[in-house]
C-alpha cells in the first residue's frame, strides 16, 4: 500500500493543546512521525531580557498552565543563584509544599484527561472533582487557582493562613482514599489494560539517548529524580521514594504517576508537620530593592539605572511534574537578566515522538501521546 502523510492537529482532540503531529502511515501502521510545535510561542525568554526579575513571575505561571508554580520556582531559584540570595527555611518548605500540591493537581488532571482519551468517562469526573480540592488549597494561600504569582526572589509572598495546615491534612486524607479508587477503576478495566500494556514502548537506553526525563523515563526503569539526585529547596530533609516501573510502556507511565501522587501526599504531610513546628519569616531580608519595586512612571527612569549588582550566572534544575526543567540566567549587573533560558521537559519528550510511535497503529496515538503528558505552553514558551 502507498504511504502518506497525515496531519493530526493543530486542532485535534488527541493533542491537548495546540500542536501538530504529522504521521506517515502505511495503511493503519505508523512508519514515520514529525511533530510540529510553536503555535503557542510567546517569546518568554526574550521578554525576560526586558523585565526585572519579579516582573516576569506572572509570565512564568503562563509558561505551563497546569504547573505554574513549578516554573515560578524554577525561574526564581535561578535568579537567586545569579543574584546570590538565600531564602529563609520556612520559605523553602512552603515552596516544597507548593511543588507537591502542584504535582498532585497536574497528575490528577493528566489522569482525568488520559483515562477519558482511553475510553473511560467516569474517572474524568473523579479527577476534576479532586483536583479542585487541591486548587482550593492553592487559592487559600496564594489567592489564585492556577496563575499564582506567589514566589518571590528571596522567598515567597506571604505565609500560609491560620488553619491552613489542618485544612490541607483533611484534603490529603481524602486523597489517600481516592488515589486507591483511581487505580481500582483502571486496573479492573480490560479496556484500559488492553490499550496501555505493551503500547508505546520506549526502553531505557533509547530514552536516555533521546534526553527523555520525568515519569516517562522512570517508567523505563531509570531511577532519576532531580529531587533526590540533586536536591533543591528543602528536599534534602524530606523522606520519599522515587517511583519506577519496568514496563517502559503507557501502563508503566500510568503506574509511575500514580505512585508519585502517593509520594507527594507523603511529602506534603511531612512539610505540614514542619510548618506547624517552625514559625518564621518567609522572605529574605536583604533583597535588592530593584528586584521588588514596580516599574517607574515615564520620565522617572533614573530609578532603574544600573546599581552595580554583582555579575553572575544562575542555574537551577528541578523535577517538574512532566520531567526535568532547567533555567539558566546570566546577570550582567543590570536589574534584568542579560539572557534567560528555560528548558522544558515536554519540548524534548515531544521531539522523540518518532521513537514512541513507529510500529504502532493510528488508534494507539491518543494512548501513547497522552501517556507522555504534553503541555504545549511550556514546550513552546
Amino acid at each position, binding site marked *: 500500500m502507498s504511504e502518506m502523510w497525515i*496531519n493530526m492537529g493543530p486542532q485535534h482532540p488527541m493533542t491537548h493543546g495546540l500542536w501538530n503531529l504529522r504521521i506517515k502511515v502505511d495503511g493503519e501502521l505508523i512508519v514515520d512521525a514529525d511533530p510540529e510545535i510553536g503555535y503557542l510561542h510567546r517569546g518568554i525568554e526574550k521578554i525576560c531580557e526586558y523585565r526585572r526579575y519579579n516582573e516576569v513571575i506572572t509570565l512564568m505561571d503562563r509558561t505551563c498552565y497546569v504547573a505554574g508554580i513549578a516554573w515560578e520556582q524554577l525561574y526564581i531559584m535561578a535568579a537567586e543563584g545569579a543574584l546570590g540570595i538565600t531564602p529563609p527555611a520556612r520559605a523553602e518548605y512552603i515552596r516544597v509544599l507548593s511543588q507537591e500540591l502542584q504535582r498532585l493537581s497536574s497528575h490528577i488532571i493528566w489522569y482525568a484527561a488520559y483515562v477519558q482519551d482511553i475510553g473511560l468517562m467516569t474517572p474524568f469526573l473523579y479527577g476534576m472533582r479532586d483536583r479542585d480540592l487541591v486548587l482550593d488549597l492553592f487559592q487559600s494561600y496564594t489567592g489564585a487557582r492556577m496563575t499564582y504569582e506567589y514566589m518571590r526572589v528571596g522567598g515567597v509572598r506571604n505565609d500560609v493562613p491560620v488553619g491552613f495546615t489542618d485544612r490541607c491534612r483533611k484534603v490529603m486524607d481524602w486523597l489517600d482514599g481516592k488515589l486507591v479508587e483511581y487505580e481500582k477503576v483502571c486496573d479492573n478495566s480490560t479496556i484500559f489494560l488492553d490499550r496501555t500494556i505493551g503500547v508505546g514502548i520506549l526502553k531505557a537506553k533509547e530514552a536516555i539517548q*533521546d*534526553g527523555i*526525563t520525568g515519569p516517562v523515563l522512570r517508567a523505563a526503569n531509570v531511577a532519576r529524580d532531580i529531587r533526590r539526585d*540533586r536536591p533543591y529547596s528543602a528536599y534534602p530533609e524530606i523522606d520519599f521514594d522515587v517511583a519506577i516501573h519496568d514496563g517502559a510502556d503507557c501502563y508503566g507511565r500510568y503506574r509511575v504517576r500514580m505512585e508519585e501522587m502517593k509520594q507527594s501526599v507523603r511529602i506534603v504531610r511531612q512539610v505540614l508537620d514542619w510548618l506547624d513546628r517552625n514559625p518564621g519569616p518567609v522572605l529574605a531580608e536583604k533583597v535588592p530593592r530593584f528586584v521588588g519595586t514596580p516599574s517607574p512612571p515615564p520620565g522617572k527612569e533614573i530609578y532603574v539605572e544600573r546599581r552595580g549588582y554583582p555579575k553572575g550566572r544562575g542555574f537551577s534544575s528541578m523535577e517538574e511534574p512532566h520531567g526535568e526543567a532547567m533555567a*539558566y540566567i546570566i546577570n550582567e549587573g543590570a536589574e534584568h537578566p542579560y539572557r534567560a533560558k528555560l528548558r522544558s521537559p515536554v*519540548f*524534548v519528550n515531544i521531539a522523540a515522538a518518532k521513537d514512541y510511535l513507529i510500529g504502532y497503529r493510528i488508534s494507539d496515538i491518543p494512548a501513547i501521546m497522552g501517556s507522555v503528558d504534553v503541555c504545549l505552553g511550556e514546550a513552546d514558551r
Partner: protein
Amino acid sequence: MTGTALSLSELPSALAGKFPGKVTPVPGRKDMLAALKVLPEAIVPVSQFLRDQGTFEHCALVSGVDWIDRIEVLYHLWSDEYKGYLELSVDLPADEPHVASVTPVWSGANWHERETWDMLGVRFDGHPDLRRVLMPEGYRFHPLRKSFELREPEELEVKARHV
C-alpha cells in the same frame, strides 16, 4: 557504554591529556560539577569522550547566548553516576556562527540545536534536519539576537508552514 567510568576527579586531567590545549576549565561555577570552555573544532570528540568514558549520557540542554562580539553555545550534560551537571561552552564568531552538531552523539540534542538555530542563527554542521522549530518557516529574524529589538515592527513575511 564502552570502557570503565572515570571518577570525577580524574576527569579534568583525562580530558587535558586527551585533548591538549582544546579544553580549559572555567573557574567559579559552584552549581555545576565543572564548567569547561571547549574549542569549536573539538566539541564532537569531547562530547563523545564525555558520553562514553565520563558517563554523561544525558544531554539536558543546548542553548546559546549572544554577546554581540561573539556567540556562546552552551551544553549542559547530566551524569547519573555523578548526579550533577557539566557545562561545556563554545565561542563562535558573531557573523555566520557554525559548529559541528552533537546530535549524532546524543539524539536528544536534536531539537535543542534546532531551537538554537531558530533563535540565534547558529548553524550546526551535520545536523540531520536543521529547520526552525518555534518560529514559522520563512521568518527572517533570529529573535534572541541582541540586534532584534523587542518592540520593533517585524514586517512579517510568513509562508504557510505546510500546504
